[in-house]
């Protein structure tokens, strides 16, 4: 089987690989897409940007056959088509790389790529033809993978490469990538972009969904902006800039840079010395962690997801005990024999905005007002009586919702019905309202739209200026660079090095994230 990629294999009569005409889709009363019309040229990289909940994913799911449009039409190569399922989409040459990978972790690369096309009863022929194709791909696009490696052992960037191989191996001439760079290091992102350029050169049309404007500017040929389910603008990338795009996305002018003054640091509030932690099966998760965090500074922790940052935050929040070393937090000594639980940590003045608000930060079925006292339900916020004071809880919620601009401003709505950004505002409102002396923040803007990002960043800087000691963990390097006064880079559970933000460049931190020492990465 030849890999069908590019114009050479298909007769094209239309300059557009994909055309959408007046596509509408609603879920109940929510109109996710309204009259969307869009045309993507052959062999171009087209970006789609928009805030969370703007309707990007719905649109792509319609194109990939996961949802069916209520009205409107889709044209592929100028011919109207009906896409009722993902099988239809694949047979039309559309491939999709999802945000969350669809790979079998304990299969090898080869087994994963072969999945769905195993050939005959015996795997022999399927293996042979897959191997042949992999070689072709390697020579054509420079996509190197070891076919016998187990997927669970591979870094995220390589896993994504396998997803792309799976998609184009299916004969895709149109490739949809949904937020592909969220989990990649800068270097991995670069090599992804190199692959995308090579694919474009062979005639593959690519749709890139992202909320990172820098990537749109770096790789796309054209871009469409979605807001409230409508296309509010389409631009040639060369004739626009990040500022304009951000404004179109949000509908107003946005500050992309965070304004902040130099830090005026005070006393040490969190001091960690030789902290170590192993998993249940003895794998080291954190090794020899030593650093200080002072009042009035933001210490950014950079690193690819899964290099010990999550465990580090859980240790500080009291959610996990550690094995070796000790730490001092606001004057209290803590070690493995004298652990401190989340409740007493909170009482000492520690705030924690967890990286996963769905798993930790919120009870999604609880109302906003209930979530706003979560962890503080033994404080005066809920009154002093035997029963919880509903009036006091409600008025607290109303204050918080107003101060942190949570929308919709409805304290009775369950947390699950808020958008990602507003859910995050609920968590941030709750933790910041307690005026913590130390704040542990994990991925504060993950899945949060650009307008809310601006707001959240401002709040963090304001808290720092009030003298709070902030530990900021984020996989978004831009965020780390924009907010931090010092930057600590982690790799495989160790601290690779700590930089002053003045000495930090994206490249240098990127190399340190890969484990290269600070001096060599200069």
């Amino acid at each position: 089987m030849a890999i069908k990629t590019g114009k050479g294999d298909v007769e094209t009569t239309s300059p557009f690989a994909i055309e959408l005409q007046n596509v509408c889709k609603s879920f109940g009363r929510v109109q996710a897409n309204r009259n969307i019309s869009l045309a993507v040229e052959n062999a171009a990289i087209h970006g789609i940007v928009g805030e969370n909940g703007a309707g990007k994913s719905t649109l792509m799911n319609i194109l990939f056959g996961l949802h069916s449009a209520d009205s409107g039409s889709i044209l592929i190569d100028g011919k109207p088509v009906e896409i009722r399922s993902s099988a239809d989409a694949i047979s039309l040459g559309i491939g999709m790389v999802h945000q969350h990978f669809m790979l079998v972790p304990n299969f090898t690369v080869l087994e994963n790529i072969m999945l769905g096309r195993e050939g005959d009863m015996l795997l022999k022929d399927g293996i042979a033809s897959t191997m042949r194709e992999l070689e072709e791909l390697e020579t054509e696009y420079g996509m190197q993978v070891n076919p016998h490696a187990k997927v669970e052992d591979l870094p995220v960037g390589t896993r994504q490469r396998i997803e792309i191989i799976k998609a184009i191996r299916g004969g895709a001439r149109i490739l949809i990538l949904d937020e592909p760079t969220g989990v990649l290091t800068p270097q991995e992102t670069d090599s992804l972009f190199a692959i995308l350029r090579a694919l474009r050169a062979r005639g593959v049309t690519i749709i890139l969904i992202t909320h990172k404007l820098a990537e749109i500017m770096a790789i796309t040929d054209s871009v469409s902006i979605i807001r409230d389910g409508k296309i509010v603008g389409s631009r040639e990338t060369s004739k626009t800039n990040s500022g304009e795009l951000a404004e179109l996305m949000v509908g107003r002018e946005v500050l992309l840079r965070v304004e902040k003054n130099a830090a005026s640091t005070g006393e040490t509030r969190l001091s960690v010395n030789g902290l170590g932690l192993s998993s249940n099966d003895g794998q080291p998760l954190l090794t020899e962690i030593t650093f200080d965090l002072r009042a009035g500074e933001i210490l950014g922790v950079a690193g690819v997801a899964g290099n010990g940052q999550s465990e580090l935050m859980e240790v500080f929040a009291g959610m996990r005990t550690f094995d070796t070393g000790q730490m001092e937090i606001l004057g209290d000594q803590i070690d493995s024999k004298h652990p401190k639980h989340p409740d007493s940590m909170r009482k000492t003045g520690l705030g924690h905005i967890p990286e996963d608000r769905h798993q930790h930060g919120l009870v999604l079925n609880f109302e906003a007002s209930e979530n706003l006292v979560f962890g503080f339900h033994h404080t005066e916020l809920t009154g002093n009586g035997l029963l919880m004071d509903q009036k006091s809880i409600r008025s607290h919620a109303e204050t918080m919702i107003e101060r942190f601009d949570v929308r919709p401003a409805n304290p009775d709505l369950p947390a699950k019905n808020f958008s990602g950004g507003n859910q995050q505002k609920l968590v941030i409102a709750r933790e910041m309202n307690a005026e913590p002396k130390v704040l542990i923040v994990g991925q504060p803007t993950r899945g949060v739209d650009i307008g809310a990002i601006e707001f959240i960043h401002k709040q963090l800087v304001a808290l720092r200026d009030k003298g709070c000691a902030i530990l900021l963990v984020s996989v978004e390097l831009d965020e780390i660079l924009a907010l931090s006064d010092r930057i600590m880079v982690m790799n495989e559970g160790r601290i690779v090095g700590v930089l002053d933000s003045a000495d930090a460049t994206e490249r240098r931190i990127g190399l340190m994230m890969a484990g290269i020492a600070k001096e060599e990465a200069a």
Partner: protein
Amino acid sequence: MKSAPPLPYWADVILLPVINLLAALLVCGVIIAMLGENPFSALSVMIKGAFVYPSSLGYTLYYTTNFIFTGLAVAIAFHAMMFNIGGEGQAYLGGLGAGLAALWLGADFSPLIVLPVAVIASALFGAAWAFVPGYLQAKRGSHIVITTIMFNFIASSLMVWLLAGPLIQKGQQSPQTPTFDANAFLPKFSELLASVSIDVARSPLNLSFVLALAALVFFWVLVWKTRFGYELRAVGHNQQAAHYAGINVPRVIIITMLISGAFAGLMATNEILGVQHKVLLNFTSGYGFTGIAVALMGRNHPVGIFLASLLFGALFQGGAELDFEFDSITREMVLVIQGMIILFSGALAYMFNRPLSHFLASILNRKQAVNE
């Protein structure tokens, strides 16, 4: 892939259960018709048997009392995301507690002392029997479903040994305790009303029904108004988040199981203190298990549990009448009818969700179109 719009709240809590019930009755009607009886006269006998005939209402409410207690036991654990299947064993042990208190104190103290102590003892014994599974779940991660089932068997064996051995009435062959002193009898409604010269038909309905109603209110306040209820629901929805918020999750799990066991144990106040006046073998006769269906149908809410208990009470009482009136409908057939209702309102509870929501959405859309 057309996704169904969400069902409005009122339809979810009222319309859907009613439709489920009607579907169950429809299937039962077909079965009864196949047996050669008239389904409508069968239904009318059931309704009359449960509510109309003299003393029938009393019997229905007597059964209802049992279901309220066991339903609450299951529901409170459900709110903390635990499946307490041990209501049967906990109620059995509750009977032991009530019985011991009644036997030891009944002869020497006034009812004002004996009855409260016996009621509390039934709750404490039930709670104690739920403690071990709760502890094992909280501290050791042993699955509560497995341990509570095992504790049902242990309870059963323990009670056989006690009732056939240490507690058996001297000179008796049947495995049961001596009858309590009258001081330990929970007053029946018919007797209470007779004392103020209101004459009603005699039935086993007794003061424990009032206790059950109080338990419903207590449940509501506990789950939705107290800090403990808040923690309990947080643990039920998201244990990790609860841990993050500083809630002592194992402690909440253990206390919830204690309360759950106490509710189940209180069932014995009706059976043992109110009706039997002695502890006897297998007095729980499956009420603990039916509590699961009651909680499921009542959506773990006190109002729902009351209505579901009333329904099951009526089924028990009306079903017995059915067995009585029709030759071809046997006791087993009545169990089939009860099973149908449990099946449709429990296991298949959401079968009609999608068609119903599409139907309602289309009505609403049409209405909107007319208005515009």
